[in-house]
């Protein structure tokens, strides 16, 4: 199959124009549309939402090895639906894609998997929580509080145990995260407070690691506007205990649209409105034949944030069917810390 | 009269045409030997060829035993060569694929006139008794020419034509072959017309005609 096509469906689904023909709460194809005021129900919402077009379980972790070096790990499961239903058979319109990556200071490993719904090869459920594709697993006995995370490919593998040190965090308005000035939105919550320990392994051998992880859960039927061409997304954990999520959707015709959350150590969330913060590329690296900004300046005057963010390994390019940059970063300046940066649409 | 040649002319086409024979006339009696001498290009070989029906003349008359040769077709000429004429050339007289014995008898068999005792006699006279099963390429030049003489005489032709038969041989062998040829021709009662550039060889024959620029001088 042409996976690019699959991803086209998954990530850049044409939603905006469809909406005008549809009734409230669903688009022309019958997919559910996130509405302001929707409430999360757990543990059910940890599981899949087949009525929505797309969904993901997205975990990133900054690690420090027993060897004293920094590492990064990504584990992502995407769900995509051709139709808003799931009959549990091999013919269900639900499909799945997994991405796993490991970044070391010198190298970056990435792998992908695809699956049709209904076969059992991939899936997710809320209680007891599990999300998997093949033997890549993220599961826990108690909601999202305790997780076991594994992934394995020909060149690398990892296996770690995570424990949440704080509450779930809802982005936007109670999880209603607006993605454009036109009003496209998603349901979006996170668990940014994980500490973890485990093992990473490459051909060079196994390394015991500890660190911090951040899980994003997001589902939607209309992720991007027609003219939006990609995004730059940051999830940062500062040494003072605060956390910051900020993203900007680049637009080929209009100004970029930004949003985010300021998360205090106790889980208190402040929404970052468009225009109240600034993401400014400082320097680009040559990655797989293209220029990608791997050094940034982030300012958020409301909290006195003025930092430079730099990639741990600027070659953290997920050279997969749908290629994008995803890797660990280090912040310096007013708020030193660690985090993850994701950049898409730099084709 | 065995041979009567009258006003024979021969011109090779070309620019300008080459007039080789300009009205040559002579006669030869049966049993007589005649030498045709002359410089290179004097026309002596051509005259021999015309007489033997090997090349057509442009004009004149060649009568062999009273039969006109000039103007005959391929087949009639070939028949005359088969029956009445024996040829001995300077080289390549023999058929390489046949043995000495086969070569010796070949012309006689072609002419349909095989006289076995005569052939045996010839073989003995030529000293070829022990060479019968050899192939021409296994013989010396003198031996080859002796076979050629035998072959030419085996069919008891009326006329033997010889074109420099000793031309490729050394002096002594040449003498020997020459002597054999003349002796055996006489024994066979045939006429001999021999082309040679050597006055010494010509001396050995009954008569001599000298050709110069296509004319008898």
């Amino acid at each position, binding site marked *: 199959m042409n996976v690019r*096509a699959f991803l086209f469906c998954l990530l850049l689904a044409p939603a905006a124009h469809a909406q005008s023909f549809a009734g409230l709460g669903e688009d022309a194809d019958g997919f559910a549309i996130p509405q302001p005021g929707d409430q999360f129900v757990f543990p059910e919402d940890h599981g899949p939402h087949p009525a929505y077009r797309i969904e993901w379980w997205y975990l990133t972790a900054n690690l420090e090895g027993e060897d004293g070096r920094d590492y990064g790990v990504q584990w992502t499961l995407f769900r995509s639906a051709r139709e808003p239903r799931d009959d549990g058979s091999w013919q269900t319109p639900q499909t799945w894609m997994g991405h796993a990556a490991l970044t070391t200071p010198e190298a970056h490993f990435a792998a992908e998997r*695809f699956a049709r719904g209904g076969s059992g*090869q991939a899936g997710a459920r809320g209680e007891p929580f599990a999300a998997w594709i093949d033997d890549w697993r993220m599961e826990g006995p108690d909601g999202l509080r305790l997780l076991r995370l594994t992934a394995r490919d020909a*060149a690398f593998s990892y296996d770690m145990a995570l424990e949440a040190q704080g509450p779930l965090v809802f982005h936007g308005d109670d999880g209603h995260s607006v993605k454009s000035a036109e009003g496209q939105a998603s349901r979006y919550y996170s668990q940014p407070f994980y500490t973890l320990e485990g093992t990473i*392994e490459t051909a060079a051998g196994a390394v015991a690691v500890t660190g911090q992880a951040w899980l994003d859960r997001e589902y939607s039927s209309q992720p991007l506007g027609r003219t939006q061409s990609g995004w730059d997304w940051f999830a940062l954990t500062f040494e003072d205990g605060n956390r910051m999520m900020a993203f900007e959707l680049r637009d080929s015709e209009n100004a970029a649209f930004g949003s985010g959350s300021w998360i205090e150590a106790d889980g208190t969330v402040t929404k970052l409105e468009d225009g109240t913060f600034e993401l400014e590329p400082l320097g680009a690296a040559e990655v797989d034949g293209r220029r990608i900004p791997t050094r940034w300046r982030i300012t958020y005057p409301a909290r006195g944030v003025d930092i430079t963010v730099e990639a741990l390994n600027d070659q953290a390019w997920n050279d997969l069917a749908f290629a994008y940059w995803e890797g660990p970063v280090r912040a310096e300046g007013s708020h030193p810390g660690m985090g993850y940066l994701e950049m898409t649409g730099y084709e | 009269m065995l041979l009567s040649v009258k006003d024979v002319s021969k011109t090779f086409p070309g620019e300008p045409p080459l007039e080789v024979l300009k009205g040559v006339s002579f006669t030869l009696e049966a049993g007589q030997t005649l030498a045709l001498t002359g410089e290179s290009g004097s026309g002596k070989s051509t005259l021999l060829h015309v007489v033997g029906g090997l090349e057509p003349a442009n004009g004149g008359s060649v009568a062999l035993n009273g039969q006109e040769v000039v103007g005959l077709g391929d087949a009639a000429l070939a028949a005359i060569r*088969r029956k009445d004429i024996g040829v001995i050339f*300077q080289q390549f007289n023999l058929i390489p694929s046949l043995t000495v014995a*086969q070569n010796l008898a070949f012309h006689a*068999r072609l002419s349909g006139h095989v006289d076995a005792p005569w052939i045996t006699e010839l073989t003995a006279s030529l000293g070829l008794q022990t060479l019968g099963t050899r192939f021409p390429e296994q013989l010396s030049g003198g031996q080859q020419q002796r076979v050629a003489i035998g072959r030419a005489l085996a069919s008891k032709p009326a006329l033997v034509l010889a*074109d420099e038969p000793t031309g490729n041989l050394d002096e002594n062998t040449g003498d020997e072959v020459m002597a054999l040829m003349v002796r055996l021709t006489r024994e066979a009662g045939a006429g001999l017309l021999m082309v040679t550039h050597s006055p010494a060889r010509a001396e050995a024959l009954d008569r001599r005609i000298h050709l110069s620029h296509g004319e008898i001088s």
Partner: protein
Amino acid sequence: MWVSGLTALLSHWRRHPLQLLTLVAGLAAATALWTGVQAINAEARASYDEAATALGQGTETRLTRRDGEAMPPETFAELRRMGWLVSPVVEGRLGRVTLVGIDPFTLPPSPTRPALTDGESLGRFVSDGIVQAHPETLEVPGITYEIAANLPVGEAVTDITTAWELLDREVISYFVLLPNQPRGLPPLPDTLVLSEQDTGAEIARLTRSFHLNLTAFGFLSFAVGLFIVHAAMGLAFEQRRAMFRTLRALGLPTRTVTTLIAAEALALATISGALGIGLGYLIATALLPGVAATLGGLYGASVPGSLTLDWRWMASGAALAFVGAMAATASNIWRAARMPILAPARPRAWAMANARALRWQAAAGLVFLAVAGIIAATGHRWDAGLIAGFTMMGGLLFGAALILPLALDAALSLLQPLAKGPLAAWTIADTRQQVPGLSLALMALLLALAVNIGVGTMVSSFRATFTGWIEQRLASELYVTASTADQARELEAFLEANTDKAIPLRTTETRLRGAPGDILGVIDHVTYRDGWPLVVSEADAWARVAAGTGALVNEQLWRREELSLGDPLRLLPAWELPVVGYYTDYGNPRGQAMVGQAELLARVPDISPLRYAARLNPARIPELREDLEALGIQPGAILDQATVKRFSLDVFERTFLVTGALNVLTLGVAAFAILASLTTLGTMRLPQVAPVWAMGITRSRLAWLELARAALAGALTFILALPLGLAVAWALLAVVNVQAFGWRLPLLPFPLDWARLGVLALLAAVAAALIPALRLARTDPSRLLKVFADER
């Protein structure tokens, strides 16, 4: 110095344009046939490689149950969740088509799988039940194909869920194991077993003999071409002997002369090679559709009918042209280098080889024949294989070719005493003398004739056997396939009521001795008992089949597994029967077993119940056809005997179309070789002919004798080619066929074909001698006379 030397050398060709033409045409023709065959082979091989990547790489690793049974769908997720990267495939027969159900999400992309270029086509493939097939794949009633020219012929590919619906079985036949499995996987369950499946190589193996055939023809034509070039080059050298001598006398170093000769050969090779490659491309283009049809028809291998330019076969053509020209020139260069400036005046016959060389050559030939004989006698004991079969044929052909000159010489010496007149004696003696010079060309003729006889006899034997077999095998007059089980019940009732006998046809797939095969369940009926083409069987074979206590197998399985009567054969994991006989089954690459239908149905209850045959008066078929269509049977699912026969014979005819074309081409090249040799010899032969002429044989008579001589040589060569050709036919039928296809065919004599070929051989020889003979008839007497006087 160089330029003037070369000018002198080349001036020869201006005076002998026919010779130049012969040389260039000979080398070009040889290169062309070679290149053409290489191009065809390359194209076919590329197609197989493409097909081999169909389900992954050239070799594909498959995971099956140890007992060969299909697996439930859940197995897939179990394996994947263990970490094993596998992709499920279900395979089944749908009429004459193999339906392949795949999972496009886990199967790696491949050029011979559906191209799902956008999200929409993937979505439709998965959820809309799209079935893709090559345009030449037969229609299956009730299924609409989307045309996909990249798929193999005879295979329909669809999503696994669609396949489950169409096959009415929700199972996985096997898993494709993806390359690059993750690190440190847990072991596979004991019930499963990995096997290397060489999908592409399977086709390659099947078609190997066909390609070897083509390659052999290519070599043959090139060898023949070499004869031509050798003859023409040799003549050119001989004629320029005096020139070389003069050049050397004028102070040109030996080295320069030899370099010039080499340079000339190189130039000729370049020109002829380029011409030959161009011609070869045309030949390949003309033959490829036939080859594609052959491969498609016989093996189901899909080869496109159009040719792509590939530097490899072009380079191989150029290399052979070069090597050919150089090989033909090498002896000339050697001779030029050793030639004394003042050569002895004694003339030499270039064409004459001495008798000792002939005997050595013949001895070498006997060694070749002995090798062939040893392989023939012992091959079956050490599993000789296809290569050995062809080695044996090569030994036969080359051995015979090497012996030919001596054999001809002997034959002519036997004829010699029979000659009455002096001319006849001379003609035979002279032919004998000519044999060494003509031998290369006559060898070419011998090889071409022998291969013609051999291949022709094989094809004719095959055709006769095949036609007879199909008469027996297609005993039923009508073959009908229902679309559904309900329809099948109606159909059976209808056939019972309206025909002499309704015969349900029940088959299932299985593994026979480790390889995919089929089981046929047959009812006890006279159709089988009297008509089925059993080769070897127990006396009560049919009774035992009917009783379910014995199985018949097809010849392919019988030979491949070296079965004997009474050997046990495992049909299903828990079902074993003794073999009670074997039957011929031409055109089927798979193993097959035939058992009692009742027993088969008891073991495999879910067998497809859709196919029926019926016995009836063929005149009633049109009327019955209407009734059947009224029952809802698809028109395409009603086949009458005549149609099936025509189809089968058509496939057969196409199979040997290419062989026939190549036969004609090689014979033509052989005739050309004779022409070239005779032209060469004609000039050298004046000294042999001139004395005879001087002694009173006309030139026209001599010309006729030349023709007679050529005819004699041709006839003798043909007489020697006949047993050789039959040996080749035997090798093809009894060795190569068994190895390549798995069946052995009886050798049937076709004297009329041979007679026709004999006439053709005579015609070829005489036609080749015609121009030299005409030349002789028109030779000016002065040229003949020059022989006696000129210093050559």
